[in-house]
């Protein structure tokens, strides 16, 4: 593999210095960090982690110090701190750089190594997911339509997997298996790639169906490349930059084979990876230019519909009180927060009821909700309380990872609110026209 000639924060701690130095320790990040809000400890928030990075560079502490490692991994990478930072500190680079340095020194823990190895091998990963789907009854018992609960023994492995935990059922047939690779529009406005992401592919294939339906209604030819794979965000946030680079390159190869003008995502994290993270992690490699080129073509479905093409307004009535949750990566990384609200408000019959802090993190953080369940549960609780206060019938969001977390939280803390993706709400309205 051609290796980076330019030194990036992922390859060299020294380059981190320039990033760390920008932090003036003002503490503004403390007012928005979901973890700090719960734990109230300095090392929970960006400022404390930056101080740890500085201490490592000054040789005051080792990068593989046990507590330090724990503290550096105690972060949702939600980027809320970056929105509040007066100094423009690029905390996403800092935290990923530190994690990457830890992984370099210590190696990946066994479980992560096995899992990430699987992710990097798309065929094997796909087989594994389907095998798991077939066997899920072994770990998870059925709990009504398309829902699963963990079996009792799992609680001893992870306290979050208790009686109240719930997940959507793994789909036996993945979305990419059943969808046609290319779906031509009759009179196409343009051609777009649908980057499905893993959650839609295995857990929420119906969101994928809804997206295809919405794009057909808007005369867009859709290509869903069979050989796309995981966006790499899960491995990246764990500091496994090499795996992330590999996945990124493979996705870019898949994009290169098409003649598409745009890439559409329905997941804040996938979109953020493609648009913001790829150009950073591929800096200095021979994929740098391609990564930049494709990054400019990435749109969340809501901004694609409202900003890129001629959009057909939904006319079907959907009688629903809806509240909208801002996915961290969709709002804070992709800067998409107006468009989904605009779309929701266009649907006849819908009332949008804003919750107190719509952009407060839901506590998912990919796997954070499992690895740090105590803190995550408290974050989730306050999110669910805010949702319930609105008395909405449904909470709408633009990210399947948030959907899963909100679904679990509403089940755990009680609430009759449904969870729905923005694109599904739109599809529902189109369908109601007939």
């Amino acid at each position, binding site marked *: 593999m051609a290796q980076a000639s330019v030194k990036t924060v992922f390859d060299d701690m020294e380059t981190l210095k*320039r990033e760390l*130095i*920008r932090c*003036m*320790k*003002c*503490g*503004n990040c*403390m*007012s928005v960090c979901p973890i700090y809000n719960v734990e*109230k*400890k*300095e*090392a929970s928030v960006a*400022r*404390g982690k930056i*101080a*740890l990075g500085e*201490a490592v560079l000054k040789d*005051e*502490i080792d990068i593989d*110090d046990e*507590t*330090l490692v*724990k*503290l550096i991994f105690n972060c949702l990478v939600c980027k809320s701190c970056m929105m509040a930072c*007066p*100094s*423009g500190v690029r905390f996403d680079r800092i935290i990923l750089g530190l994690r990457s340095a830890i992984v370099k020194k210590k190696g990946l823990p066994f479980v992560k190594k096995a899992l990430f190895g699987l992710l990097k091998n798309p065929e094997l990963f796909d087989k594994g997911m389907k095998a798991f789907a077939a066997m899920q009854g072994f770990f998870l018992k059925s709990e009504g339509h398309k829902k699963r609960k963990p079996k009792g023994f799992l609680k001893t492995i992870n306290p979050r997997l208790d009686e109240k935990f719930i997940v959507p059922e793994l789909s036996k047939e993945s979305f990419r298996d059943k969808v046609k690779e290319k779906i031509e529009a009759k009179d196409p406005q343009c051609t777009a790639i649908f980057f499905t992401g893993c959650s839609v592919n295995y857990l929420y294939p119906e969101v994928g169906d809804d997206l295809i339906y919405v794009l057909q209604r808007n005369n867009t030819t859709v290509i869903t490349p069979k050989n796309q794979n995981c966006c790499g965000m899960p491995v990246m946030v764990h500091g496994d930059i090499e795996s992330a680079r590999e996945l990124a390159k493979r996705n870019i190869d898949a994009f290169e084979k098409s003649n598409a003008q745009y890439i559409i995502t329905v997941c804040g994290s996938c979109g953020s990876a493609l648009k913001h993270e790829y150009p950073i992690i591929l800096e200095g490699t021979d994929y740098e230019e391609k990564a930049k080129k494709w990054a400019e073509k990435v749109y969340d479905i809501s901004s694609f519909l409202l900003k890129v093409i001629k959009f057909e307004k939904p006319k079907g009535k959907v009688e629903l009180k809806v509240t909208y949750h801002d996915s961290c990566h969709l709002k804070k990384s992709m800067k998409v927060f107006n468009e989904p609200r605009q779309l929701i408000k266009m649907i006849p019959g819908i009332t949008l009821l804003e919750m107190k802090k719509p952009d407060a993190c839901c506590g998912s953080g990919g796997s954070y909700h499992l690895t740090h369940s105590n803190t995550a549960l408290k974050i989730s609780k306050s999110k669910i309380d805010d949702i319930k206060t609105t008395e909405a019938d449904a909470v709408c969001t633009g990210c399947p990872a948030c959907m899963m977390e909100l679904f679990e939280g509403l089940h755990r803390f009680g609430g009759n609110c449904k969870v729905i993706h923005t694109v599904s709400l739109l599809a529902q309205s189109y369908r109601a026209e007939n």
Partner: protein
Amino acid sequence: MIDKTFIEKCKNIFGSDNVLTDKAELIAYSYDATPGIPREIPGAVVFPENTKQIQELIFLARQTKTPIYPRGSGTSLSGGPVPLSKGVVISFQKMNKIIEIDPDNLTATVQPGVIIADLNAAVSKYGLLYPPDPGSMATATVGGSVAENSGGLRGLKYGVTKHYIMGMEVVMPTGEVFRFGGKTVKNVTAYDFTHLFVGSEGTLGIITEIICKLIPAPKYRKAMIAFFNKLEEAGKTVTDIVRNHVIPATLEIMDKVTIHTVENYAKVGLPTDVEALLLIEVDGMGQDSVLWEAEKCVEIIKQNNGSYKIAETDSERDSLWAARRAALPALAQVKPSTVLEDATVPRTKLVDMLIAIQNIAKKYNLMIGTFGHAGDGNLHPTILVDPMDKDEMERLHKAVDEIFEIALSLGGTLSGEHGIGVAKIKYLKNEIGRSGVETMRRIKQALDPDNILNPGKLVPMED
């Protein structure tokens, strides 16, 4: 000193969840928002939940001669909460309850760890306001701001923290719990302890409960922004407004360097060919009086050859304020590090001070953007530097020395609101003289005979 037994005892007092001892955790308590000051990694951090625990800690610290460093949110700009030895940090983040809001007596009783913005959110439900509003109010604690006597944007009309504290509970460095003041508007019993402990920077006692004074929140406000081609005209506008008996809630100034930087960064539509701008907001309970005050301000701006924009709607007000809010973030983008001073002069000397700062910038070849609370003469010369540039850092120190010298020569003060801490301790004598320093030492020794509370801050113990 902190050893195994000390830590065991701390765990007994606070519970092991509320004691941090791992080095990585402790490193995150070795700083505040002040750049370039001495720092030490503490030996332990404890999170009290009640007064009794603090009392027990004091007894333990006295026995073992362990320094105690109180810490709110660590946003101080003078080094107040930063440990100077391997002592113990008391973090008040878990003592954060609003104990009572009493809308009839217009008071709120709070624990020291309550965040200032949270207090305001809670009292706003009663139509009330706790006026002290430091720029850090979304993060800073009431306890920390009482200990620093923090100011804010509303200082000119509404005063600063000390005007809103009516009483306290304090654990003394000798271990006694002492309550003074209360909910009465009038109280002349004993010495005025409230004013002794406000601004004591954690050196005289540990504040465990605070009674705050509230006021009815003003119902109407009017904001405007004015631009001037000459600094002198901006300065004269400030004094003319006050001379005409209009006291705006906000009267902020930004100099040319700051305006340029803000416009570059935030593109808020500021003219870049002016020397200074003023952001003015008047407020009050009656619409007529607020409008009269606004008109008076406009008249004075025109007399001083200024041009202006006045906000007609809330969103227009927001866009005027956007320029002021962007001042620090914009300046912070230019260089890796920012040094924010708060030398303060009488209102009438504002222009002299601004010109002096510009000359210092030229002399030492430094970029200095100045903005601040013009109405109360409290300026924030913000010096932009690269800590990796040794030569620049040397010029910085010389420039800072000179800024203080000039502020004092104009009849001003070293610090309008950020406090002395460690950052300005060496300049203290220049302002209050030998007798002043001696008096401070005597007070400190009388109340804290073992010198365990925040030693090395505010009071220079030796020459």
